[in-house]
């Protein structure tokens, strides 16, 4: 077993095994498990994923309003809590929290680290994944920006694009580690590459060692969603998960031939074959061709084996040559939407809610609402399971309560606003017992997502190091 080591720097021998923790599942996740694993486990690295598909677009919008914003501020809070301890223990922290303002986060982190007396700490960071200003040139070079989901024509949205981020692999992050970074901050690095880079750095894997690269990616895949890899969102037996209020996040012990998923001592959660399975295929499409910028992963023959309490060994992962193209994710302005809600109680809660919906839609018609889409759901009846929800009138007539939800999507803000003042009045003007809650509905911008492929050489990523003074 590996023991907690003193701070290890470049040039020392590789460990033969690297222990990596997953500290964050998304922007808005809890910091508790990350802090716990820094304090109580023997991890060498912790990687924190903050970026879901739309997060870059949301951060782009924030930056537009405030040039100092545009990164996941939560990471600063996490580092305030456990950054000093991580640094002193030699745990290197990697994150894509830089979002749309990598330098902004690095600057804030350096100032905070300086206040904590961590002078000499090296913050590595990667720039260059945002390429929206290069779109015209790329179009001229013949890049088509064809939508991977076969929808729409790029010319229709080209003027509405406000961010274009390339999903990139391990290379620039690994370069930061090689230059001795104690912490690495990126923008749209793939989640899994943040975990792969430490494996390559510590175990000496080459960039064309496809089988090992695939293992590193899958270790990352099992960790990048935080608690979801350790008993959170666990369908098989959620009642069996211990101490969910202190849910630990998963940890991978990666060595040459296989890796083991586990969690920190003294925390809640579960690591078993079923919990690992549910995360293993999560958001994977073809298991024999799971494409990442680093490697084409084949998990169609993979095995998961319980080898001890909260320890699962993952084996038989194969890799093939990486794809030639990189995935580009464009965010574009796609209109507006708003949703209003109103609650109703027994008796006849569902019938009253339907009646209220009818009133609102008649008013909308009178206002000449021009909506792209209208959606009426009944929370408590069919807002989640939609068409496969229970529809037996006998079962629905005695419901205790139902919440009406009306949502519209429009091209202009003005159209969306037409719905906003029509919800609350039904407390006094509609069927009995209606209750309005949560304040007036907010009109939101619809952020469209345009996934496409671009050649690797269309993007120039750069690695930097900033030393804390």
């Amino acid at each position: 077993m590996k023991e907690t080591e003193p701070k290890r720097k470049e040039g020392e021998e590789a460990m033969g095994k690297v222990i990596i923790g997953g500290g964050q599942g998304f922007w808005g996740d809890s910091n508790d498990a990350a802090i716990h694993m820094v304090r109580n486990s023997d991890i060498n690295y912790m990687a924190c994923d903050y970026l879901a598909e739309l997060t870059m677009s949301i951060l782009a919008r924030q930056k537009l309003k405030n040039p100092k914003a545009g990164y996941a501020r939560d990471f600063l809070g996490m580092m305030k809590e456990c950054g000093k301890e991580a640094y002193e223990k030699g745990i290197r922290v990697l994150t894509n929290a830089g979002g749309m303002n990598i330098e902004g986060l690095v600057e804030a982190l350096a100032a905070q680290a300086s206040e904590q007396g961590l002078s000499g700490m090296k913050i590595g960071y990667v720039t260059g994944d945002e390429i929206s200003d290069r779109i015209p040139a790329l179009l001229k070079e013949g890049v088509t920006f064809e939508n991977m989901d076969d929808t729409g024509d790029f010319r229709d949205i080209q003027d509405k694009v406000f961010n274009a981020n390339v999903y990139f692999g391990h290379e620039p992050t690994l370069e930061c580690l090689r230059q001795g970074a104690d912490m690495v901050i990126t923008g749209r690095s793939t989640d899994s590459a943040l975990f792969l880079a430490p494996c390559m750095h510590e175990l000496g894997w080459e960039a064309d060692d496809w089988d090992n690269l695939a293992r590193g990616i899958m270790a990352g895949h099992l960790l990048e969603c935080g608690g979801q890899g350790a008993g959170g969102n666990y369908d098989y037996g959620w009642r069996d998960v211990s101490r969910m209020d202190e849910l630990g996040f998963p940890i991978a012990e990666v060595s040459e031939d296989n890796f083991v998923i586990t969690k920190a001592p003294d925390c809640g959660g579960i690591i078993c074959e079923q919990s690992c399975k549910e995360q293993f295929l999560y958001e994977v499409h073809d298991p024999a061709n799971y494409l990442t910028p680093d490697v084409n992963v084949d998990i169609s023959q993979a095995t998961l084996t319980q080898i001890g309490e909260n320890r699962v060994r993952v084996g038989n992962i194969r890799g093939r040559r990486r794809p030639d193209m990189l995935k580009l994710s464009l965010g574009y302005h796609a209109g507006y939407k708003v949703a209003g809600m109103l609650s109703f109680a027994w008796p006849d809660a569902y019938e009253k809610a339907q009646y209220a919906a009818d009133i609102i839609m008649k008013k909308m018609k009178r206002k000449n609402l021009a909506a792209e889409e209208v959606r009426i759901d009944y929370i408590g009846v069919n807002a989640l399971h939609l068409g496969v929800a229970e529809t037996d009138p006998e079962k629905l007539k005695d419901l205790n309560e139902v919440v009406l939800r009306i949502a519209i999507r429009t091209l202009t803000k003005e159209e969306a606003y037409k719905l906003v003042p029509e919800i609350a009045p039904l407390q006094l003007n509609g069927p009995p017992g209606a209750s309005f809650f949560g304040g007036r509905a907010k009109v939101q911008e619809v952020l469209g997502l345009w996934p496409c492929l671009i050649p690797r050489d269309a993007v120039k990523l750069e690695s930097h190091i900033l030393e804390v003074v």
Partner: protein
Amino acid sequence: MQIYLNQIAHGRSGDKGDTSNVCVFARKPEYYGIIAREVTPERVKAHFGDMVRGEIVRYDVPSLQGFNFVMKHALGGGATHSLRLDSLGKSMGSAFLRMKIEVAEDELG
């Protein structure tokens, strides 16, 4: 007899744009064959009706006693485009496992 799929299977749903994937695993190894037989893409398509407007592909992963179902145009436009309360399809997994399947009594052991 008819049972809900979730009696013999567990799973999780995820999203990429307007595409939803649901991975489904046999609760016991002996249930794998039942799922393989009963839960065809055609049956899944019929179960979801107009909730899923695109193609459904099933990938079999016998080493995990599991399947991955990839369903296109399944989230009402996906992410912020979708007007659904659950625009990311977090509950697509349980909606999937709500499917009714036909089993012989002795198959369940």
